[in-house]
């Protein structure tokens, strides 16, 4: 689909410059390849083309041929004559063909853009100072780039509803709406929940929800993302923060094994919102509403913030040392988690191997939605398999471990990011063991822990996950964690380093070096070299496992099985 070097291309000319582009793409995308911008509002690469904003008007022409003979018609200088269309055409619905000429800059085009900009603004409230979209608003951007800079409009502006509650998370300001219909098309074509539409007509056209239903599906906030102006706003984010103060950090959504690419928007150590980041192999340009809420865990009241040894406050170094001693002296088992990152799981595996302990995993399944929420509600099950810490899928619960504890075969437990009481162990079981807990939130397990190692959330550390398509993707630290805490990978490194004969890698990059050396699937990779959109790993070794995920946006297990079937037969 993408980065396919062998794909055929055609030659077109953008403002007279020859460019090679894939055949059949539209002029907006073709111009983008040529490094030229054709401004647009209604066109969205992942939605159908309606051509209603008229901002992408451009000039277009094809090399002329004689109608009778088919011979090229030549100019006086011998070059082929270009038959320019008499009227400007819209770039979004003009698909390029061989030899096509596109003009993105001319007096005529300038006039068209000035006209459309002026028209879009005549009834616009121009309330940028109080508008959440300010700073990331295409009306502002194009008005600066392509507008006249002044208004000739002296009449009264149309009045429309200013704050319509479309659903629990989306608020609509109709006066700002440019009627591009992106949100309507999103509902019809992607979310399959057709609840938005226009009422009235002409200049009084108004976006609204059908009577009765609400815009309450789990993808409603995508309409806010794709709204090119400040009409659709996130009720949660509304009036809270100016976007130009926010820092963007590339991250990965941990909601499920889809591994949606995200941007985390933060300021002064506080996360303010999460938006999707385009990745055509994973999530296109979408994400769930529920995934956007996950940052609230960062500031939860139940957050674990200090190291403790037997209820006494400790520092990271001594806590890690105590944990290592405890594990080494006891009959240890580990409950690791597919919430952990690849490198954390790798170090956990090292710890398990050094102790001769088994690493248990518990599964977290729920209903998938066929789009961007898969059945496996952890981000890194494939990562656990690839690191070799386990060869099987996470178990339904910890009953096997419970039996071992009852039988006295296990008397020391390292639990990482899993509340054991939720997974089949009782508090009686926890009383029977020396418990070391690494986690971010207070729960029954943390309360029962003898040694408490507070961890960091995905927003506070660097790392990587492997999604359901065996795509390795990395996330970055957006905000600093609570004072004194260490990233899990360093903490686990310290525990490992305190075990006899083991060395603490000391950094994420060093952990990656070991990972790449020891595990063939990661060979040749380094944390820094993982591309921003991730890289595909070979998961064929696990094709026999019965993964719980069913079809979703970019995942089709049935098709993969079909592909695999002949190979198996052979």
């Amino acid at each position, binding site marked *: 689909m993408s980065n396919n070097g062998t794909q055929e291309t055609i030659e077109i000319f953008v403002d007279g410059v020859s460019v090679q582009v894939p055949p059949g793409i539209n002029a907006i995308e073709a111009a983008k390849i040529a490094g030229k911008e054709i401004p647009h509002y209604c066109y969205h690469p992942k939605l159908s*083309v*309606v*051509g*209603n*904003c*008229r*901002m992408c*008007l451009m000039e277009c022409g094809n090399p002329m041929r004689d109608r009778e003979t088919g011979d090229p018609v030549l100019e006086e200088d011998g070059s082929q004559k270009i038959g320019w269309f008499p*009227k*400007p055409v*819209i770039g979004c*619905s003009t698909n390029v063909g061989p030899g096509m000429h596109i003009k993105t800059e001319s007096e005529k085009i300038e*006039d*068209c853009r000035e*006209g*459309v900009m*002026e*028209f*879009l603004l*005549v*009834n616009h409230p121009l309330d940028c100072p109080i508008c959440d979209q300010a700073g990331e608003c295409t009306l502002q951007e194009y008005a600066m780039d392509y507008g006249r800079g002044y208004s*000739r*409009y*002296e*009449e*009264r502006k*149309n009045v429309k509803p200013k704050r319509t509650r479309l659903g629990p998370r989306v608020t609509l300001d109709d006066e700002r709406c*440019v*009627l591009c219909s992106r949100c309507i098309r999103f509902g019809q074509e992607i979310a399959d929940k057709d609840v938005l*539409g*226009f009422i*009235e*007509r*002409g*200049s*009084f*056209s108004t976006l609204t929800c059908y009577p009765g239903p609400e815009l309450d599906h789990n993808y409603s906030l995508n309409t806010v993302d794709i709204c090119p102006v400040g009409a659709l706003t996130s009720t949660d984010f509304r009036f809270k923060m100016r976007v130009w103060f926010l820092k963007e950090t590339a991250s990965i959504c941990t909601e499920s094994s889809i591994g949606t690419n995200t941007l985390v928007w933060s300021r002064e150590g506080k996360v303010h919102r999460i938006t999707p980041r385009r990745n055509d192999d994973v999530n296109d340009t979408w994400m769930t509403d529920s995934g956007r809420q996950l940052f609230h865990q960062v500031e939860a009241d139940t957050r674990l913030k200090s190291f403790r040894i037997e209820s006494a406050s400790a520092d990271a170094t001594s806590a890690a040392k105590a944990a290592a001693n405890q594990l080494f002296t006891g009959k240890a088992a580990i409950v690791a988690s597919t919430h952990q990152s690849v490198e954390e799981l790798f170090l956990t595996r090292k710890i398990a191997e050094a102790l001769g302990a088994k690493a248990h995993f518990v599964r977290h399944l729920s209903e998938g939605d066929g789009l961007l929420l898969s059945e496996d509600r952890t981000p890194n099950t494939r990562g656990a398999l690839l690191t070799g810490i386990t060869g099987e899928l996470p178990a339904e619960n910890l009953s096997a471990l419970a039996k071992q504890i009852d039988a006295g075969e296990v008397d020391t437990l390292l639990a990482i990011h899993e509340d054991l009481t939720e997974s089949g162990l009782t508090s009686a079981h926890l009383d029977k063991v020396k418990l070391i807990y690494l986690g971010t939130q207070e729960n029954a397990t943390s309360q029962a822990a003898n040694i408490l190692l507070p961890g960091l959330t995905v927003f506070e550390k660097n790392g990587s996950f492997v999604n359901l398509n065996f795509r390795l993707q990395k996330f970055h630290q957006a905000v600093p964690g609570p004072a004194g805490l260490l990233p899990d990978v360093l903490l686990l490194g310290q525990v490992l380093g305190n075990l006899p004969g083991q060395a603490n890698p000391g950094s994420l990059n060093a952990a990656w070096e070991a990972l790449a050396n020891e595990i063939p699937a990661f060979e040749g990779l380094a944390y820094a070299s993982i591309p921003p959109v991730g890289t595909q790993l070979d998961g064929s070794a696990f094709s026999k496992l019965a993964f719980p995920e069913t079809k979703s946006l970019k995942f089709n297990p049935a098709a993969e099985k079909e592909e695999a079937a002949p190979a198996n037969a052979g």
Partner: protein
Amino acid sequence: MPEEKRIILKYADEPGYTRDIDCYLKHGGYEILKKAVKMEPDTIHKEVMDSGIRGRGGAGFPTGLKWKFLDRKSGKPIYLICNADESEPGTFKDKQVIYKDPHQLIEGMMISAFCIKAKQAFIYIRGEFFEGAKILEEAIEEARAKNFLGDNILGSGYSCDLVVHRGAGAYICGEETGLIESLEGKRPYPRIKPPYFPAVLGVYQCPTIVNNVETLCNVKHILDMGGAEYAKIGVPNNTGTRIWCVSGHVQKPGYYEFPCGKITMGEMINDVCGGLFPGRTLKAIIPGGSSAKVLRADERFQGKLKDGTEFDWSIWDIPLDFDSPMACGSMSGSGGIMVMDDTTDIVQALSNLNAFYAHESCGQCTPCREGVQWMRKVTKRMCNGDSREGDADLLLSIANQIEGRTVCAFGEAAAWPVQSFVKKFKDDFEAYSKKPVVSSECGDNQLV
């Protein structure tokens, strides 16, 4: 005085002629359909091509050619739609056929459907013609009972049903792709062309032909007299008769059917329509429905016709056909001739038109949606006694920003009146700004 030649309206106003099927059959009705279903569709198509008939809806596109563009390779069903959404201000010709002689339309449609091998035919009728819709539905029932439509028409093995679909009162549904969207049950947002040419991707994304009522009626008569014979009516490239609807400041407004090009504007207004009211002089004429560019009474029209002959006409000399009004910078459009005498306040007239277009803009694409409403606000303000210097230039500039940049032809339809009014009557507009008048005579331009 040129004689009316009534083909379409031959019986419509004849005393004693009723719209039921018995009366129609008595007058030779459905004989042509009986003949048609025994012919090869291609032969019928050839007759239509030979007749040179051009669409009567407004654009004047050759009907035979339109049918030729049908995508027959896709294997999808073909649909025929009769555009009976007659909403162009100043036009009231299709209404006569629908109300007085519905079976003529049905016969014309079934012949056309047979010719293009349509699987299903629709009549999309203007929402305000509720009586007309009832009449058509009754007529369809009568025709179905006699097997002129429905299954196995007249034993020919060809089946095609015909249904009436009422619009909901929107001018834009006269635009064929808007009509198609409306017929599909959606908002009548015209589609972008390319790729949605009805002959390829029409209703339900299937090849579709959309023709005007008068055009489809003509098909019957073309087959009756033969394409070549039909082509002899009128003048070359402007064949057949046309129904002209004259309204405004004339003594006898109404609809008149004449061979194309055989009557001039002067003859039409002064002879046929009894001239202007006593003591009045002509100010302007809109020759083809409100979208057509206005012609000023004292203009001279000079230039070259397509066949090379030079012309030098006053407004009275313009032949009423397709090409001549176009040569004069306007169009014959839907055939709605609107006459304005010297009592007309040209700014108020434009204000009225702007109110109409602002009310009827569908709101899909930006230039039309915002620009037309803006023009309406400006002319309304002028009429309300708050005219400003530069208003005329502003109006012209807005209109220029709309024309040619919209999804459908509504942009032109709304821009042309403004462009022509302002350019040709600049004095009237400037007089407004120089001498602010507070007028209470805003008339009916408060549509929105």
